[in-house]
């Protein structure tokens, strides 16, 4: 029997609206150390240059080369740090809730961001982008970003913009946007995970510290509809509609509609409303209920009485 700790309805709603989940310090120190050993990490003062260190990692790393589309359950040796991390109850539960326990590996990659002392010229931050290519699907992949070491603000942890996952754009076409209100930079203790919808805009930060920064990314794809895969015991099957606009008192932040209509600081006045519609459509897919709605956004525009 699986020991996976499935996500709650509130966590799933947060993911549907904002496109990410953070699991700080969910990987124990011993596993972080095993992962660093597995990739061939050496003490920072033993690293002479970025090129030399990448060469060492590529030649010695125990990270397997895995074919795209391989079932996740077959991707990593059972005694590897990665297999153990993915089997942690909180991690396995998030994966099962979002893409199903029978998901497949799209790809993985070890990102190493070197400090200026190991580079001829300090590297700038990576442009903001959406991974892969134009992807208009309703179903979604997830990207797990694993930080085995502490990430401090000057280490340039991954920058991401919550709520951008509904936007259908073409990879680096959004590179022009240097700063967006509400952008977040990963700063975290060792053993933290950031799990993102594949559509979230993001980019690596500039490392201004003296230390290397590692981030291991795993992209996972579902093989079944992502319908009610989380712990749905607290899901009200047809989320009752609540009063809107004239509400009497400030709505509770933990109300499901409040979570699903979270307003990002970068939302435009008009398209911010479209983001709510798109969240509601994603929620319909996740709940398997094509009549459920979020604050009446879909019901209003679907009320077609002309028979057209």
């Amino acid at each position, binding site marked *: 029997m699986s020991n996976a700790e499935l996500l709650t309805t509130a966590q799933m709603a947060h993911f549907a609206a904002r496109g990410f989940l953070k699991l700080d310090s969910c990987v124990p120190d011993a596993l972080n150390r095993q992962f660093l050993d597995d990739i061939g990490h050496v003490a920072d003062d033993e690293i002479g240059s970025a090129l030399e260190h990448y060469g060492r990692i590529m030649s010695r790393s125990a990270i397997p080369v895995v074919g795209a589309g391989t079932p996740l359950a077959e991707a990593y040796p059972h005694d590897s740090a990665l297999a153990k991390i993915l089997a942690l109850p909180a991690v396995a539960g998030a994966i099962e809730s979002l893409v199903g326990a029978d998901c497949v590996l799209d790809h993985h990659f070890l990102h190493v961001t070197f400090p200026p002392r190991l580079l001829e010229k300090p590297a*700038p931050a990576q442009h903001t982008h959406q991974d892969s290519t134009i992807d208009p699907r309703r179903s979604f992949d997830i990207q797990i970003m694993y930080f085995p070491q502490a990430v401090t603000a000057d280490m340039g942890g991954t920058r991401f913009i919550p709520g951008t996952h509904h936007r259908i754009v073409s990879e680096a076409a959004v590179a022009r946007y240097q700063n967006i209100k509400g952008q977040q930079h990963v700063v975290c203790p060792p053993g933290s995970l950031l799990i993102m919808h594949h559509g979230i805009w993001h980019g690596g930060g500039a490392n201004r510290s003296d230390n290397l920064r590692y981030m291991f990314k795993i992209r996972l794809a579902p093989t079944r509809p992502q319908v009610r895969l989380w712990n749905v015991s607290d899901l009200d099957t047809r989320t009752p509609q609540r009063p809107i606009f004239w509400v009497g008192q400030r709505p509770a932040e933990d109300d499901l509609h409040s979570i699903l209509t979270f307003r990002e600081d970068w939302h435009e006045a*008009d398209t911010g409303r479209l983001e709510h519609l798109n969240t509601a459509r994603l929620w319909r897919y996740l709940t398997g209920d094509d009549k459920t709605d979020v604050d009446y956004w879909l019901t209003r525009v679907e009320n077609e009485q002309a028979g057209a």
Partner: protein
Amino acid sequence: MSQRQQVLILYLESSALDSRVIAWASYDGSGRQEHMAGDESEAPYRTGLNALRDGWRLFQASQLLPHAGGDEFRTDYLKYEFFFEKLVNIDE
């Protein structure tokens, strides 16, 4: 003495130039400042109008385009993009 262009791109909350800045980018042809992704948490101006009042010259604004039938609810790129410039003198 010659001139170089500094470019400021502001993304606003609506098509009104006096609406709130939600995203921004700066490119400095004089080489005096280096900007990159994620380097600022606060916008240089609260609105586009505030940039005008500080001497930035608007030279391009995004158009308002009709929404394609069947695609009305799709979101993609930031919609209200305004390009500003300043010309600055440099010593050569």
